[in-house]
């Protein structure tokens, strides 16, 4: 570690070390996640009874907007790439660092500034934005709340995301260790590669869209105002051209984590390495063509609706390919039900629940019925919390011993995972039923017949909260008190496990030479307590 009079602040906050930057991201994201969860709990409490309980309409609108902005832009999008990508991508490549270490620090600072700007928007100006996280015009152009500052935060966060993606692409192209051919990359690295391209190609469109909101509000341009020659539907197109691919920025890295975890705990090489790689790239590509399935009822032409509905079905194919590959990997494997695998299985189950209902929404006919209802809320929470969230938890439990050199309590970790699966189903499954019965999303009041399902959902939120509390308790406690472990407690075959835990600043003493693929366990030594 660098020393010589450098203060703790300088050593950490201005570090160029990718592992420290990854840790900084991880802590920030966790802090924001906790804030987002608490806001979600308040929303669910308000919905426990029909009518106004303890927060008003305006506060409710602000809360779901803030919940969305924090969770989407500050937590989920950077979660796995920025935290675990920074921590482990260079290690998995056998590299000393990412390609542009200074740019990496800069990305982190942009992330902090962007996140802070988004938070400042809550407490200044005309109050917290109340538009929903999509910032749809015309409302976002005319509301007196603090939308401009919030979207400025989103712009900065987007810039941070672009630079992280750019850094990863160049890192993967340029800094692979000798012998680490493209077909010997870990699937996590492949997933990050596909994700990075989406970050680079899609995010600029969001940037320009939010810039347009700001100039629209400040200068009154009228680009989205029909009275002055503009078109509000164009806003939706521009917004979803980014934000739909962004869904794959959220889910692809999680899929990469799962693809790395499953072979390790089944002691079997991954089934269909190349199809998993291909499906990641296919998702990245096809996922960029389906944005308008968010707009089936916006007044697009019928042809456009049919085309986008068809394309949406196509994206389901590579996602399903991955699921079948994971299951095939487990078939006749020597399965060890360790916590990372439990979380991975939770991921597969919850992601499948969300993915299949995604088809209900992608199909134009059924979407007409459930559009903008709780069905949508249930769907994306299954995919995002059940998918990305569980991918994140799986990643934390998989790499925790590498990050801290200590092991958590495995029984507690498994218990927390099971509580979370039960809690998430309790929390989000009733939303499908609410949506089918016609409960619109974003409403803070509802008709009495929806009461029992809303209650069920709120009970689920308490169970989920309990699961999260247990998981965090276990992790934080084990960070200090956990049993020390050696280099490779899971006996995994990828490069990061050849290093001491936690890895030293310079990563590899001698540049590793790679002679086999990432899931070839034949030469893995049992050096758990080395």
């Amino acid at each position: 570690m660098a020393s010589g009079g450098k203060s703790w602040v300088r050593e950490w906050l201005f570090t160029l070390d990718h592992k420290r930057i990854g840790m900084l991201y991880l802590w920030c994201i966790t802090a924001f996640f906790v804030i987002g969860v608490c806001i979600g709990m308040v929303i669910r409490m308000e919905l426990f009874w029909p009518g106004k309980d303890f927060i008003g309409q305006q506060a409710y609108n602000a809360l779901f907007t803030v919940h969305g902005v924090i969770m989407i832009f500050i937590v989920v999008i950077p979660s796995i790439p920025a935290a675990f990508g920074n921590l482990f991508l260079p290690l998995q490549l056998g590299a000393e660092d990412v390609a542009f270490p200074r740019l990496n620090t800069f990305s982190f600072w942009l992330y902090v500034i962007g996140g802070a700007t988004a938070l400042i928007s809550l407490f200044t100006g005309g109050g917290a934005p109340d538009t929903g996280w999509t910032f749809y015009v015309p409302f976002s152009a005319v509301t007196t709340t603090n939308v401009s500052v919030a979207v400025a935060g989103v712009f900065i966060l987007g810039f941070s995301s672009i630079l992280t993606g750019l850094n990863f692409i160049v890192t993967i192209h340029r800094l692979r260790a000798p012998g680490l051919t493209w077909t010997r990359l870990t699937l996590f690295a492949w997933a990050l590669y596909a994700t990075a391209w989406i970050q680079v190609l899609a995010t600029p469109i969001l940037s320009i869209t939010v810039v347009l909101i700001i100039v629209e509000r400040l200068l009154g341009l009228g680009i989205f105002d029909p009275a002055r020659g503009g078109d509000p539907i164009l806003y939706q197109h521009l917004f979803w051209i980014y934000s739909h691919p962004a869904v794959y920025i959220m889910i692809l890295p999680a899929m990469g984590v799962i693809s790395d975890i499953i072979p390790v705990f089944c002691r079997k090489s991954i089934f269909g390495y190349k199809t998993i790689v291909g499906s990641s790239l296919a998702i990245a590509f096809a996922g960029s063509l389906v944005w308008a399935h968010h707009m089936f009822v916006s007044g697009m032409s019928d042809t456009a609706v049919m085309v986008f509905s068809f394309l949406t079905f196509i994206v389901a194919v590579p996602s399903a390919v991955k699921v079948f590959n994971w299951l095939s990997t487990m078939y006749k494997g020597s399965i060890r039900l360790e916590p990372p695998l439990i979380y991975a299985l939770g991921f597969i189950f919850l992601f499948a629940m969300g993915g299949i209902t995604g088809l209900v929404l992608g199909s134009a006919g059924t979407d007409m019925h459930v559009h903008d209802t709780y069905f949508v809320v249930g769907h994306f929470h299954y995919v995002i919390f059940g998918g990305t969230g569980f991918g994140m938890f799986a990643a934390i439990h998989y790499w925790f011993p590498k990050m801290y050199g200590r092991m958590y309590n495995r029984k507690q970790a498994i218990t927390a995972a099971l509580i979370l699966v039960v809690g998430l189903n309790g929390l989000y499954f009733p939303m499908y039923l609410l949506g089918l019965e016609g409960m619109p999303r974003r409403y803070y009041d509802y008709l009495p017949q929806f009461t029992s399902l809303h209650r069920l959902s709120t009970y689920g939120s308490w169970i989920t909260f309990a699961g999260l509390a247990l998981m965090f308790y276990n992790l934080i406690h084990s960070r200090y008190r956990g049993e020390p472990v050696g280099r490779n407690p899971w006996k995994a075959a990828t490069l990061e496990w050849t290093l001491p835990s936690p890895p030293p600043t310079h990563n590899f003493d001698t540049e590793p030479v790679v002679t086999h693929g990432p899931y070839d366990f034949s030469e893995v030594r049992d050096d758990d307590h080395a």
Partner: protein
Amino acid sequence: MTMHRDYQGAKMGMWIFLFTEILLFGGLFVLYSVTLGRYPTEFHEASKLLDVTLGTTNTVVLITSSLFAALSVVGLQRGDRKLAQGFMAATLVLACCFLVIKYFEWSHKIHAGIYPGGETLIQWAPGKQAFFALYYTMTGLHGLHVIIGMGVFLWVWTRIVAGTCTPEHFVALENAGLYWHLVDLIWIYLFPLYYLIT
């Protein structure tokens, strides 16, 4: 931490970044083409109000500055620091010229009430309002990029003075040049779309 030097990596990073810039403007070009398709006559009439002479002058100014930027890179590659700095200075002077001309164009229009929400423009047909809304957004964003590009050149200047951008390691200047060519390229599209579609 040793800083490794990777010429190809640095170039690759810059190209990817430039691609994101093109996409950033791409969103606006999409808006432009959709709006043009909707109001072809209004765009035609509104375009006549722009000063083609000033626009052409600015195009020449910017292309020439791009040439100087390229010559500056060549100068440094050949090991002549002073020559590189001279061409950089010429680039910066021309960039200033571009901004000054742009300033006169804009202020002239704004004085005449032709700006979003302005008293003249607000009475015109929606298509013409849309034309000028896009005109100010796109040329404004482009102008901002000109200023950023000038900042990048000034930063490279300090690197040359400090001796970290040298004839052996000139990639910082080369990337600044690439950025400048992009700014130039975007203008080359903006110019006909706004000044010449009549």
